[in-house]
């Protein structure tokens, strides 16, 4: 059973090695009921491996992944009764129509509401009467999305679900996510689209080289990260030698720009020694946060 009875999903010190390569390194994280959590990382960071461990498709070298208290590897069927999965690449059966594929997936899931399926079919503008081999990547992705959503599973696990979708449907997907959250469904969303994660997710996990380097709400991450300060001044620039936690200072034509981490009290006092005409403190976007974790040393792919 899971260590935390209240958690929907838990990685407990999960390590996965493929030969000499460590794809996941001591990963520990939990998801609570009704949360939407974004999983970020560069190519090869371990996102898909983490999801495949969670789904019981591969066995962790050590540690344990549980979903609703069930061990993913030992009891995958119990896990799969509670979740639905959207893969990033969906290879369909070429001789089956989209409708037949949805029939099959729904039947194996154990049934679904026909009206809900029809609703998402119309909403994603999907034609279910074509043969699988004639569908474009986007249309194949729609099948995966409809199949997952029509089950109304408690947990949705999505691996780059909008890859191949057009911008209008990407937007539609955002509202689908909001509705899922409103219904109380839990979502684990792996994505490269940072704006998508920033808009939809309550918490964000950042993987790097198989390790979880950050996990928290955007607010928490922003609090830990540097904020950008821009100040216009007249006369001499302020003296900042004694201010702790500042870096990347740029002074040019009456404009001071810097990054500050932690409290801004001492910075504000230091700025007050000059004639400040405007002051702007901006929190980092998710994109800036993400780059801050990937800017320090080369990733596994870059080595």
């Amino acid at each position: 059973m899971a260590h935390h009875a209240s958690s929907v999903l838990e990685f407990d010190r999960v390590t996965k090695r493929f030969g000499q390569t460590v794809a996941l390194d001591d990963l520990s994280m939990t998801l609570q009921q009704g949360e939407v959590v974004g999983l970020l990382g560069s190519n090869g960071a371990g996102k898909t491996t983490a999801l495949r461990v969670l789904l019981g498709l591969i066995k962790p070298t050590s540690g344990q992944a549980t979903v609703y208290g069930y061990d993913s590897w030992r009891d995958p069927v119990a896990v799969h009764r509670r979740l639905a999965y959207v893969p990033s690449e969906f290879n369909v059966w070429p001789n089956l129509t989209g409708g037949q594929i949805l029939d099959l997936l729904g039947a194996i899931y154990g049934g679904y509401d026909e009206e809900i399926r029809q609703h998402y079919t119309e909403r994603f503008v999907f034609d279910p009467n074509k043969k699988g081999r004639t569908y474009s990547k986007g249309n194949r992705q729609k099948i995966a999305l409809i199949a997952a959503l029509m089950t109304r599973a408690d947990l949705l696990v999505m691996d780059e679900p909008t890859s191949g979708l057009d911008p209008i449907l990407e937007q539609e997907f955002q509202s689908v996510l909001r509705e899922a959250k409103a219904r109380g469904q839990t979502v684990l969303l792996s994505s490269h689209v940072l704006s998508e994660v920033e808009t939809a997710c309550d918490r964000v996990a950042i993987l790097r080289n198989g390790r979880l380097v950050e996990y928290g709400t955007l607010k928490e991450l922003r609090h830990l990260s540097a904020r950008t300060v821009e100040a216009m001044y007249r006369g001499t620039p302020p003296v900042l030698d004694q201010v702790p936690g500042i870096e990347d200072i740029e002074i040019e034509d009456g404009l001071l720009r810097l990054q500050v981490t932690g409290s801004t009290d001492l910075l504000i006092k230091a700025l007050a020694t000059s004639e400040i005409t405007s002051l702007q403190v901006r929190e980092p976007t998710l994109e800036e946060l993400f780059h801050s974790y990937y800017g320090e040393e080369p990733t596994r792919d870059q080595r």
Partner: protein
Amino acid sequence: MTSAEIVTSRTAEEGRSTPLGIWLVLLKHHLRLIAPSGMIWIIGLVLTASVVAGVWIDTFPTEQERLALAQSIEGNPAFEAMFGKAIQIHTIEGFTLWRAGGPLFPAIVIWGMLAATRLARGDEDRGHDELLLGGVLSRRALFLSALVTPLIFAVAYTILTVVALMAISDISASGAIRFACGMAGGFTFFAALGALLVQLTPSRSSAVRIGLGVIGAALAMRILSVLEQMPEWLPWLTPFGWFTEIGTIEVGSNLPFLLFGAGTLVLAGVATTLAQQREIHGSLLLGDQETAGPQPPYKSLWWHEVQQSRPAVIGFSLVGVLLTGIFGMVANDFAEFIVDFPAFAAFLGEFGLSDPGDPSAYIGLIITMLVLVPALFAAGHVAAIREEEATGRLTVLLILPLERHRWLITNVLVGLAGIVIISLLVGFSAMIGTSITGTMLAPADALSAGLNLIPIAVLFTGLGVLIFGIYPQLTGPLLYTVLLTSFLLVLLDAFLDIPGWLITLSPFEHQPMVPGEAANLTVSAIFLVLGVAGVIIGAIAFRRRDMMMD
């Protein structure tokens, strides 16, 4: 200079190859694509033909024996149905063409079809061609490279065959060249046909299905053409007939070479013209309907797996029924012939035929040969199981509440049902074939012959599932290699002094020739037990291993 500076300092023209250089790179890529399987095909084909020619002198050491062989075989529909028209088989040239070419010609044309469709459409179906065509490469250049590649393999095969035949036997240069060129002619003809079919159909798999159908029909026509009531021009309608008409330099015809060459050129020319008119991923004749209309619902895994296996079951059944039916029709001729030539009965004894004068013994031999049909179906079925995993489609099913072993066992049981259907149809088609010529095989014997094919196919199913569970990437290659090698061992044992322990390893060695012989329940039980054990161990191993996609 840093790499970034190098990038900015160079012009787009620097480092570009000439059009010929680009085409040669492409050709190398195409050669590499089919080289592994091509080498296996060439080695197998050259080795088998060389062995047949090499043991000819030992098998028929005197001129008298050779003439007796020719008198007994030439014009006998039973043997000519098996290996094709026999011309001057008292010479090593005529014997090699007849005895080696008979079974090897269908094999080499299937290879030609598979290789050409792989080259001309395989990459396109996988979406790789967009990358190539997105550059400076024209569609014509891409297609020509796909056409030239099989030609290179045909030349390599011809040279190796001539060299090997002449090194290992007393065959004349003209005999070796006629044999090798005839085989290579069939290869290039069907390769060109494959390249044409992929222009007309929506995918490589559709082209292969139609191509194999054409090959099966051509083979059936060649077999039918040996019947007395058939017109003499019938063999000239298909490349299979052309090959048998090659004969020897003294008695045979040179027209087949001209037909192979001209036919290949015409087909390749039409294919090249059509290739430039076809849209990528498109089809000029058999298109995928944009809207398939109302389709039967897919309401269970069972239904799904049955639907997926249905085309293969139908295809293998048709091949089995057609071949057994035709051989059943000539069983009586065989029995009459063998009564007059007891010496030949002794020769056939090398194949394990205990009472060749009995038509049912001949049927037993043929059905034993045709055990390859359900066995190959079984291997193909297990290979398709692996394909589901390799393409990632299985992942989509296994993230649903579906146990791995349930999915696997469902697939295996559907495959077993296919094996039973194919095996029984083979048995009963022999009964129908013999009934046409008045020597009807008893229904019980037909049933027994059909049932006798099942255990060995189950055994190969078990072996396949075992490999799939332990080392999935090797499922298809290893299973087919074991199956074909063990079959070839038994065939070659009639000519070569293969060590007994090695022959014993082949399951085909233990296969009784029902209905000519009584069924061996012990052997059948061992095959079944080993097959089931393979499935169980494979299923357990599959449950314990990671999913592995390509």
